[in-house]
């Protein structure tokens, strides 16, 4: 429950600031998962370390959108290793890029890193006199062997490896596994309320009932709940109005999914949520989020986007598309488009 969080935080000693961390912080609306976080702490706890020279390791397993990444970030926020390293592990290329960043953080020059960067960084971690936390985020089929091969097998100080993945077989390469289940209905309601910035105490019984209904329909899938909550908070509709709209959208998947497995249900839940969440975006917002789809998922500079919008007078056609080749022969129309572009804040 949200209202219990301040008390809970008071009982936890604040973690000391790491000497280095490139792990993004958990999402501001992260809720629930208290049990999973406790389990993760116990499994990675130095006191549970039977062999001093071995880092603890745990796989966070679950379907896409279940909150694996956020749980690993929440663990990083609450822990006190000397170094916290984030490894994007969905492809070999990105994994290696991430190890390059670790090499830089450890002060390794390109000539020192040599041709087998991953192996060099791995052995450097194994011989560190500092403790470290290494999070391999989103290991996929294509990067499975490389991610496993990149895991340090010893450590001088109590250190830990967290892997997040939809691949359950990774558990054979870690000491423990946490299977992330859907959020409980009430946790889902809490997440929606947090997105709506509503105090649970002020929610009417009818609204609470509607939120329970939405949370249940979304199968407790955190990503779908967060995007739905975000949509609701911006739409300014009454909950009952939103619920009608939501139910309307929902109808067509209920029939289609009743014989299907849960993960297919969840995947379709995300499709429905994205459909309405994206459909209702203003044209400029839609253009902007589409642009983000072609950049790296992390570390996109705000200034880059501000400048692009300024130079293109809003997100008007920029002369590359087949349509624009037609439009560009009529410069007045282009200026007109720029003038009518709806202003929005970046």
């Amino acid at each position, binding site marked *: 429950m949200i209202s219990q969080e301040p008390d809970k935080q008071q009982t936890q000693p604040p973690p000391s600031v790491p000497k280095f961390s490139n792990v993004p912080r958990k999402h501001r609306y992260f809720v629930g998962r208290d049990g999973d976080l406790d389990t993760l702490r116990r499994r990675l706890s130095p006191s549970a370390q039977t062999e001093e020279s071995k880092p603890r390791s745990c796989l966070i397993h679950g379907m896409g959108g279940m909150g694996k990444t956020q749980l690993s970030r929440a663990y990083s926020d609450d822990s006190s290793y000397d170094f916290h390293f984030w490894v994007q592990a969905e492809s070999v290329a990105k994994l290696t890029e991430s190890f390059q960043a670790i090499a830089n953080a450890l002060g390794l020059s390109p000539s020192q890193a040599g041709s087998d960067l991953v192996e060099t960084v791995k052995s450097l971690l194994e011989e560190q006199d500092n403790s470290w936390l290494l999070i391999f985020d989103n290991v996929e089929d294509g990067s499975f062997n490389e991610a496993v091969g990149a895991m340090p097998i010893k450590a001088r100080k109590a250190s830990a490896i967290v892997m997040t993945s939809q691949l359950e077989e990774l558990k054979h390469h870690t000491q423990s596994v946490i299977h992330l289940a859907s959020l409980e209905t009430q946790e889902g309601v809490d997440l929606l309320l947090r997105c709506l910035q509503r105090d649970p105490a002020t929610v009417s019984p009818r609204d609470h009932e509607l939120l329970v209904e939405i949370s249940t329909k979304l199968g407790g899938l955190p990503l779908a709940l967060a995007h739905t909550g975000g949509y609701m908070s911006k739409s300014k509709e009454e909950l009952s109005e939103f619920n009608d709209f939501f139910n309307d959208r929902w109808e067509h998947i209920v029939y289609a999914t009743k014989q299907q497995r849960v993960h297919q249900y969840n995947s379709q839940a995300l499709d429905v949520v994205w459909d309405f969440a994206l459909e209702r975006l203003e044209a400029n917002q839609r253009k902007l989020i589409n642009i983000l789809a072609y950049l790296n998922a992390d570390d996109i500079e705000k200034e880059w986007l501000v400048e692009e919008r300024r130079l293109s007078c809003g997100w008007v056609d920029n002369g*590359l598309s087949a349509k624009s080749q037609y439009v560009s022969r009529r410069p007045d129309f282009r200026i007109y488009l720029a003038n009518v572009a709806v202003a929005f804040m970046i």
Partner: protein
Amino acid sequence: MTSLNERCLIETKPTASSHGSRSLYSIHRSLQIALRLKLDQDEDERMVVLGHAISIMRRVTPQANDLQVPDRKYWPAFAKASPHVFSMCLAFKAAHPAILGTEELAKLFYDTGFHYWERWSAVPRNGITLLLTAEGILDQLGHDKPRLRSDISCMVSCLLDLVGAGYMDVIQSEARTEALRRREELVRMRKEVMLDASPQSEELPRAMRNVNLATGKGSVEEILYYNGVNDLGLSYLQVNQFAEAESLFEECYAKYRAWGDVDEIPFEYGKYFHNISFVRMYQGRYDEALSWAEKSLACKVKADKTSSTPRYLWFQYNMANIMVQAGRLAEALDLHLTILRNRETICGSRSEHVLQSLYTIGAIYHHLGKLDQAE
């Protein structure tokens, strides 16, 4: 962005930097994939969106050096941009239906691929992916663009030398053979470009003179052509075609002499002396080989104003190997031990250069029958 953040479609990460605070955004990968799949269904809109993304990355990604000379001052900007350009490249390759690339996109991928080489990146495969994608775009467009094509091919060859045979699974042929094939083609293309170049380019811009030539003689096209000839000679050495290699090195040497003397362009002379020492070694003319190797070391110091560089130690390492071939084992061992100590200091104890020295010294001890020391 504020609205997208409030809708939980993106996340904001405030970050402190030396230039004040700045905001970074992130987006869930699943949502990125969903967006790209939707855009695949509207190719016109996809081109508009990708056009903006390219335009952004073009502004923040430096251009590769015209003479393909590493330039450290651009490395921070490259480091920030390259993960995004690489992600764009992967998205471009995965698009279905395929996206029709543009020359601008090919150039962006080339510039970023160049950066992977210029800082001897530990992930040369990513650089090769970028460069081959750039090359694929030029093929797709049916563009001749010999200058860009040859620049791409040159960098692919250099990166192939870095990754060696380990890249065979992707390239489908032995990496060095592929590098040789590319360099032969490269020399042909650069010769065309050089011959087509206008005579007005005889005088080099000042910046390029500082980087490459002190004399101001020659043109960018000419310098690039002879760099290509030199690299092709190195590829011939790797496949033991010494006569062909020697002929190319001599062609370069003749041009260097026309450009200036050893005091004016020590870097170019050093390259020739170093390369020709290998040719002589393979010909069994060891005394001559060692004499050229010593000259190459002198040029290296003249060019770099110091002997404390990994590249100087590499030249020295090769000279010690010539001593081994000449049967001067004790002398070679002393020199190798010195190089090892210097490499540990300059390159770091974990560098592959140190590993290379350790292996060589172990082999010499083994050859001398000193098995304990070899072990």
